[in-house]
Each structure stands twice: as C-alpha cells, then as structure tokens.
C-alpha cells in the first residue's frame, strides 16, 4: 500500500486527499447498523451472563449480580456438555461423508482426462438443497419418515420390514436423519469450493506427474491434497462454525424436544429454550461460551482470508 502511494504522482495524491472524508461518510450506515444491532447486543449479552435473571411462574426474578454463578451452574448441571457432545456427534456424522463426497466430485469435475459431460446439470442439482428452507426440508423429512409416511410404507410394500420403523424414536436413526440432511444441504457447496481450489493448482504439475507415470490416485494424494490443504482447512473450520449453529433441522424434526432422551438437542436449541422461557442469565452464560468457541475458530478462518486481502 505504501509503495503505491509513493509511486503515484503528487498532484493525484492531493486530489484524492480532498475526497477522502467521504471514506468515513460512506462507512457511517454500516458502522451505525453494526454498533446498534451487533455490538450493543453483544455487550448486553455478556453483561447479562453475570446476573441472576429468570422467569419463575409469572414473575421475573432479578436481575441480581451473581458473578460467575451462571457459568458454574451451566457446567455443573452437565447439560451443556451433553448438548455440546450431541452437536459435535451430529456434525461429524454429516461432515465426514460431506468432505469425502465433495473431494471425490471436485477431483472428477476438474479431471481433464475424464471429460465428464453434464457438469453444469450435476452442479446445479447438488447445490440445490443448500438453498431449500431448512425448516421446510426438516418438516418434509418428518412427514416422509413418520410412522405411516411414504418411506415406511414403501419399505413395507417391498417386504423389507413388516411393521413401521419408528425413525424418531431411536437415538441412532434420529441423529442419522439430521446428519444426512446436513450432508445433503452442504456437500454441493463444499464441492464447488474445493473445485475452485483445485482449478487454481498449476496444471503443469499434473502433466509432469503424468509424464513421470503417476496414476490418478497418486496424483490426487501426492499433489492435489497437499496443495489443497489451505482450502480444506477453511472448509473444515467454516463447517464447524456452521455445525455449532445447528438449529433449524433438529428443532423442527423433534419439535424442539431434542428427543429421544435429548440425544439430538443441540447447543443453539438449548439457547433457544432459555431465551423462550426468559431464563436470561443462563442464556447469557451459554452465549458467551459459544461466542468464545466461535471466536477462536473465526480467528483461524480470519488468518486465511485476511492475510492476503489486507496486504493488497
């Protein structure tokens, strides 16, 4: 940046300077909206986490300052850890197939020797679930996988089972359904991101490897994967941040109960529950912990995006 200013003719620098106050003026709407709707709520959230403030029957208790007691309660009850574990389990169950399929598809789409036809059609199809309203998608799955829904009646007609399988009454099948929906909604997006990364790799590397007699499997693991590391880490961390926000799908699928036996209750569902019942102290403590976790993860993402961007 310094170089460019120094290199520019003096007259031009001067003429730019006259207008520079507009830089600040144009930032005002963004800054105002950010301060009012994000920064103040953030401070308020942190502040709330130090107070006893909840609804008991019809009257509100507090706010009374209690220091870190909300945090102690949050961890002592064990609920937080259970819901954190649920969230992570369902995220991993969806993310592993998502990443595996996306890597495979991206490698195929970018492989010149394969010359796959209909790429645009396939990309359009696999990206589509990403734009579907998650709550509608979850309600659809709820009806399709209900006890007398089409999936059960189809399996009975085929003779695979004799009586309906209660998908939402078992821990495993409930979690798999949620993970499967997350997979469906995100593998297309990941494929497209990874493709962009793969297309950025210098093709002469592949050609050289081919001349040296490397197989396509070798090329994938020895050349593509190492060079793709930055973007896979980016996908991993952004997906993890997204996973921690998992809400719509399990909320609608289980009607906010997180059943069976709270095994599909996620952290944000827990937060939503506290917010709804006006348990503000606990909601505050939970928010702050989530903020710290996502903050740390964001820093990692930020390292990728910012390091190059700010320099230029």
């Amino acid at each position, binding site marked *: 940046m310094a170089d460019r200013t120094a290199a520019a003719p003096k007259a031009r620098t001067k003429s730019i300077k006259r207008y*520079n106050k507009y830089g600040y003026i144009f930032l005002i709407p963004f800054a105002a909206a950010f301060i009012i*709707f994000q920064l103040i709520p953030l*401070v308020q959230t942190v502040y709330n986490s130090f107070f006893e403030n909840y609804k008991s029957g019809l009257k509100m208790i507090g706010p009374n300052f209690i220091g870190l007691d909300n945090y102690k309660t949050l961890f002592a009850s064990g609920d937080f850890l259970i819901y954190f574990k649920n969230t992570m389990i369902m995220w991993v169950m969806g993310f592993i197939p998502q990443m595996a399929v996306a890597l*495979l598809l991206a490698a195929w789409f970018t492989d010149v020797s394969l010359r796959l036809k209909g790429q645009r059609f396939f990309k359009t199809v696999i990206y589509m679930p990403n734009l579907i309203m998650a709550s509608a998608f979850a309600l659809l799955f709820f009806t399709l996988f209900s006890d007398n829904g089409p999936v059960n009646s189809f399996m009975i007609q085929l003779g695979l089972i004799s009586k309906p399988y209660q998908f939402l009454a078992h821990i495993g099948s409930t979690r798999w359904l949620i993970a499967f929906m997350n997979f469906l909604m995100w593998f297309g997006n990941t494929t497209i991101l990874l493709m*962009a990364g793969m297309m950025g790799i210098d093709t002469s590397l592949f050609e050289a490897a081919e001349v040296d007699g490397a197989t396509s499997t070798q090329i994938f693991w020895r050349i593509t994967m190492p060079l793709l590391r930055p973007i896979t880490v980016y996908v991993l961390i952004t997906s993890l941040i997204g996973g921690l926000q998992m809400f719509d799908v399990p909320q609608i699928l289980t009607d906010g109960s997180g059943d069976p036996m709270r095994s599909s209750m996620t952290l944000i569902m827990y937060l939503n529950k506290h917010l709804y019942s006006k348990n503000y102290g606990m909601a505050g403590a939970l*928010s702050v912990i989530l903020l710290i976790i996502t903050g740390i993860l964001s820093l990692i993402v930020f390292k990728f995006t910012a390091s190059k961007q700010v320099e230029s």
Partner: protein
Amino acid sequence: MKEKKSNSPSVKVRRVIAYIVLILLTFICLVWFYILFINTTRSNGELNKGFTAIPSTFFMKNMHNLFHGPTPVIQGMLNSLIIAVSSAVLSTYFSTMTAYAIHAYEFKGKKAIFTFILAIMMIPTQVTALGFIHLVNSIHLNDTFWPLILPSIAAPATFFYMKQYMDSNLPSSLLEAARIDGAKELHIFNTIVLPLMKPALAVQAIFTFVASWNNYFTPNLILDSKMKQTLPILLAGLRRADWKTFDMGQVYAMIAFAIFPVIIVYLLLSKYIVGGVTAGGVKE
C-alpha cells in the same frame, strides 16, 4: 498423447464409476422433492393408503384447502417476501457502499477497519440474540419487521465479496475521470459504481434474499402475532399441531408452497448462484 490417455481402459472405467456415483447423488438430492410433488397431488385418503410414484389429481384441491385453511400461508409468504426483499436491497446497497469506502479512499484507520470487518465476519448472530431481544424490546420494535430488516445494512460477508469484486473490476482511473466532471461523490457511487457492480449485486442480492427467506431462529424470537409470522415460523407451528386429525394433503401442499417457488427461482438463476458461491470464499 493426451487423446490416447483419455481413451485408455482405466480412464473409461473411472468415467463409468463417476457417472454412476453422480446419478446416485442426483437421485438422493431430488427424490425427496419428487415424493413431495407426488404427495401434493394426492388426497388424504390416498396418502393413508401408502406410497406410490404416480401423481394423482388433487393438487388444486389441496392448494385450495391450504389457502382457505386456518394457517395464514399467503400472509406468511407476503411477510417473508417483504422482509427478504428489504434485507436484500439494504444489505447489497450499504455493504457495497462500505466496500467502496475502503476501496476508493485513503484515510486513517482504513486498514484497521477492514481487518475488523473481516474478523467479525464469522461470528454467528445467535450468540448475540439475547442482547438483541433486550434491545428490540427496549425500543419497542418487537413484533415488527424492522429488527429483521435493518441489521442487514451491516453484512460483513457481502462487504467482503464486493471488496473483492471491486479489486478486480473497478479501476481508480475511472473514478478520477468522474471527479474531473465535477460529480459529487454519492452521485458517482450511485450512477457509475453501482451499474458497474451489477453482476456482483445480483449474486449478493440472491444470497441475502435466500438467507433471510429461510431464517427461522431470529424471526421466531421477534414475531409473536400470527398475521406477522413468516413461512418458517408457520411451518414450525404446523409441526406442533396434532397430526392425527390432519389432512395430510394440506400438509404436503404447505411444504410444497414453501419449497417449490425457491426451486423454480433457483433453476432460473442457477448460473449466477453456482458461480457466485466461490467468488466470496478463499481463492487459492
């Protein structure tokens, strides 16, 4: 040599495997929407009899029942539309303006501001929801659309996309020329910069619209009265209802009503959408 290589048996086998996997994935992406479509055309009685892959004739009847049922779906769709369109317009306009401020001017603290916006880009809105509800209640905006529309003025992700687009598509010489003409800065932004940003504006408007349209968490905490609720909240309400007494044809009609318009719009605009996914992310 390349030609020979691409027709070798091993490549052919890999190509066949690739097509099989792609067709399978296409199937598991689309089958749910196909069943949804079929079931929207069937009556409650037919639906209770079991699954079939052939459409029936009750589509119009189900839609009629849905529109005249107790759930205000048309109002819900209008509410969703108002909020999503307003958010998309405000978000793209003001975030582009912010990107322009950073792109076109030199001022103190510019780098720090840019870094800061990138740093907050990934922070989810849910973690500040508690303070947000407090704020909305204290300024008496609860149960209105404003708290769902106005925050989109500050959209770090849109900002970042626009900034990247400007870096490669908006030469400063052009702005210099406009200034010599004596145009005011805001005028330059509105009449010269914005038209040049059209492709990027379209992409970001679509993404903001979809995000707002699909949003369930925040509207659910803000909107209380039935006539103000958006589609996702109405769908969640449907989930809570007693299913034994329900006309399933109507349930499928409602889900179809929420999903199919988005699919149609997506198919029309997919070229821009799929292309726009990567542009905002990291480029390696």
